[in-house]
């Protein structure tokens, strides 16, 4: 019953995304045909014919009907600029984006929890002041600025890491370690900006748990401090952090637009940006559906998982 309700909510939200995306990108001012043919030897009559060929002269409701019908058949349309299926273009770009955002999320969660637990266990200590201060500074830093800074220091001055692209361009480039090497700077940049939210959340939770009775009891049993912290306090402090991690999972697809731009990472952010410049409505629809769909779906998954994980309201 619960699963059906969650599925129903998810379906309703996805339908809303479908309507909203179509309306949004068709209300954008600008004529894609004029933009695509600028600088080309084309007559005014040709422009009208091309518009008709793309179906842009049809009433909006007819365009929407065609779009939904095609979508029901798994057809996301064809890019007006690249003249390629949108689904193919999305498939090319989603891999690099997921690689970057998932690795950055893992890193930021790991670092955020580690530093947050340390800070929360001894609040107002030097470690807390330094760690929390650094987290807030990085959280406040503009992503592009931080990326450029890391690029200048670790990439250009020290020459430690590649500064652009996902692989070496020489023949033979693109091996696992080659890609990992290219991933370092964009991943660190993204993780540095994101980890503060996990740090702050778990810090507060751990600081609240450290005076709990069961913690005092564990200490009284003579357990070492690290064991009390990680085996007893942290599991009980994890619920809000887990909730945040699951909620943020939906944004992993869309969360790296700026970092992709700074490090020329060939992901969905770049595709979206170029499609907006056109504008290229079929590509914009596709990316919008994918980005919003992933957020809505992750939200539904989080809803289910958290209820299973958090037994406080259950019958146990």
């Amino acid at each position, binding site marked *: 019953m619960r699963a059906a309700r969650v599925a129903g909510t998810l379906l309703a939200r996805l339908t809303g995304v479908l309507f909203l995306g179509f309306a949004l990108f068709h209300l954008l*001012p600008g004529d894609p045909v004029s933009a695509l043919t600028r600088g080309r*030897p084309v*007559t005014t009559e040709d422009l009208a014919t091309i518009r008709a060929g793309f179906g842009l002269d049809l009433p909006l409701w007819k365009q929407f009907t065609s779009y939904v019908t095609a979508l029901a058949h798994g057809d996301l349309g064809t890019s007006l600029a690249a003249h390629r299926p949108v689904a193919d273009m999305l498939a090319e770009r989603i891999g690099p984006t997921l690689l970057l955002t998932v690795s950055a999320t893992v890193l930021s969660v790991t670092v955020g929890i580690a530093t947050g637990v340390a800070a929360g266990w001894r609040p107002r200590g030097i470690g807390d002041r330094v760690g929390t201060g650094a987290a807030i500074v990085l959280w406040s830093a503009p992503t592009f600025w931080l990326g450029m800074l890391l690029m200048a220091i670790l990439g250009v001055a020290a020459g430690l890491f590649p*500064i652009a692209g996902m692989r070496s*361009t020489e023949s033979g480039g693109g091996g696992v370690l080659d890609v990992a090497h290219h991933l370092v700077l964009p991943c660190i940049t993204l993780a540095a900006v994101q980890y503060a939210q996990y740090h702050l959340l778990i810090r507060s939770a751990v600081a609240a748990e450290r005076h709990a009775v069961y913690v005092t009891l564990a200490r009284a049993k003579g357990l070492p401090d690290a064991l009390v912290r990680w085996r007893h306090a942290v599991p009980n402090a994890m619920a809000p952090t887990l909730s945040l991690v699951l909620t943020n999972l939906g944004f992993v697809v869309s969360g790296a637009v700026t970092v992709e731009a700074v490090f020329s990472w*060939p992901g969905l952010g770049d595709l979206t940006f170029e499609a907006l410049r056109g504008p290229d409505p079929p590509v914009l629809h596709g990316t919008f559906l994918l980005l919003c769909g992933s957020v809505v779906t992750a939200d539904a998954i989080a809803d289910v998982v958290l209820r299973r994980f958090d037994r406080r309201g259950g019958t146990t």
Partner: protein
Amino acid sequence: MRQVRRAICSLLVLGLSAATPLLAPLTAHAETGGSTLTVGISADAEDLNPFKANTVVASQILRLTYDYLTDYEPADNSTLRTLATNWTSSPDKLTWTFTLRHGVTWSDGKPLTAKDIAFTYRALKSAPADVTNRTLVKTFVSVDAPADGTLVIRTSKPTATMLAIDAPILPEHVWAGRTDMYTAQPAVPSVSSGPYVLTERKEGEFYRLRANPHYWGPAPKVTEILLRRFKSVDTAVAAMKRGEVDAIGNLNSVQFDALKDDPSIARVRASGLRFHELLLNPGARLANAAPEGNGNPALRDKRVRVAIDYAIDRQKLIDGVLGGYGEPGAGYLPAKLTPWSWQPAPADLRGYDPAKARQILDSLGYRTGPGNVRIMPGSRKPMTLRLAYTADHPVFPRYATYIKQWLGDIGLPVQLVPASGSQLGALQYRGEYDLLLSGWGVDPDPDYLLSIQICSALPLTKGGPTSSDAFHCDPRYDALYNQQATELDPAKRADLVHQAISRLYGDAIPLVLTNPATLEVYRKDKFTGFVSRPGPGGSVLGYWSYPHVRPVAAVTQAESSHTPLYASGAAALVALAVAGGLFYRRRSTRHLRE
């Protein structure tokens, strides 16, 4: 448990041992030396279908991989004999006979003949409307290949652009009979006849071109060209400092100046084959003369437009916005575009003269009201002009700020209307602006840029698309345009073009503000032999140049040889951290094991 951790540590060590050789691609560039020319590009090719491709990058790739019937001489934009080595036109100027180069083959070894060219032009002629290149052959009546080395084209009217058919010649044996001819992407590696062959394509990353061993011309000195995508020029510049990129175009003045002290980098300030213009809405209208848009009626008066032109200090725009890298604009086409360019004589030039601008407006009855704001004759409402520009381009917002100040000084307050590129396009073709900032790059042949100023470019329906630049419509200009389009004598055609541009200057609808220089850099310690177009002082980064580029002998590659060491060092640090973590964890839980 202990065995598991030992296994993890062993795997880490093994991984690190394996890491160094796997990082080898990072240094491959150094090992291959100058044989790969890596050029930074800021956009994708998007569509490489040879009939449809229309982006700058796609055009470069097609020019490097395919032959065209003729090309442009880099020195002076005159006709370069490529596939066609000779040509004659009939006395009635309607039949052209081309003699083709012998011994040209495709990259798969098959001969390129007149049949391939005939196939290409026929396919273009019957292409759908979205194949914009089809207008290049719009006057063709027939294309025949009576012999392998002879091509005969019959046209419906004399056509001046017969030696500027900018469409790549395709292999009939590859493209004929395909139902997806107008949408298919070329195979990789491509079958083509130009100096290079497209061998790898990664959208958003790079395009790899290898020298074509079957090329009929001199073998390119650089065996591989890599067009590498960067989403920002700043990143490309940083990559150049690391030795990852050899050439970058379209820098801004700040990026260009920042490289002036680097002895390994050559900086090229190419005379502009671009122009930035201020469009004044002359009273937008449809092709049937029905009014369109909502332009300020004051701008329908040519004298008001001329007054605005006098209020603009072009040198200030160059110094303040372009960092000094540009030339003041006047005539519609840049001075560098010989023989087509026309520039006004000094006596006719509308230079910066705000006093004259005020005088003109005063004489027309534009009295000054409160706040030094002029009021249009017959109206009580103070004047305001809307200036639309794209905020996507860093130059235009700064132009707009200056123009607002100057027009305000002569009593014409300006309301700034920033827009995205696509928004601006919509405002432009609907005529919903008073002033609008725009810009163009210039092809060697002027036909297209002249065509966007003719009356038949006006929109057919309200809100409909238009190829008109600024709703200019002058029957005498149209007559000159049509004459030049059918004039085969280059000198006579140039004269007609000059007359047309002269009229356009007089109408003061597009006001050419500047001819910005194209700023390019390349690694002179690695490559030499770049060819500039047009002539000395022109651009050196383009398809006309790359086949002539050659590596500088004995380039020292030591600079990038440290990269794998650094990488291995970083990997070792990570491994040590992980191993340390495991050790610490073992210690912290020792009491449990004990």
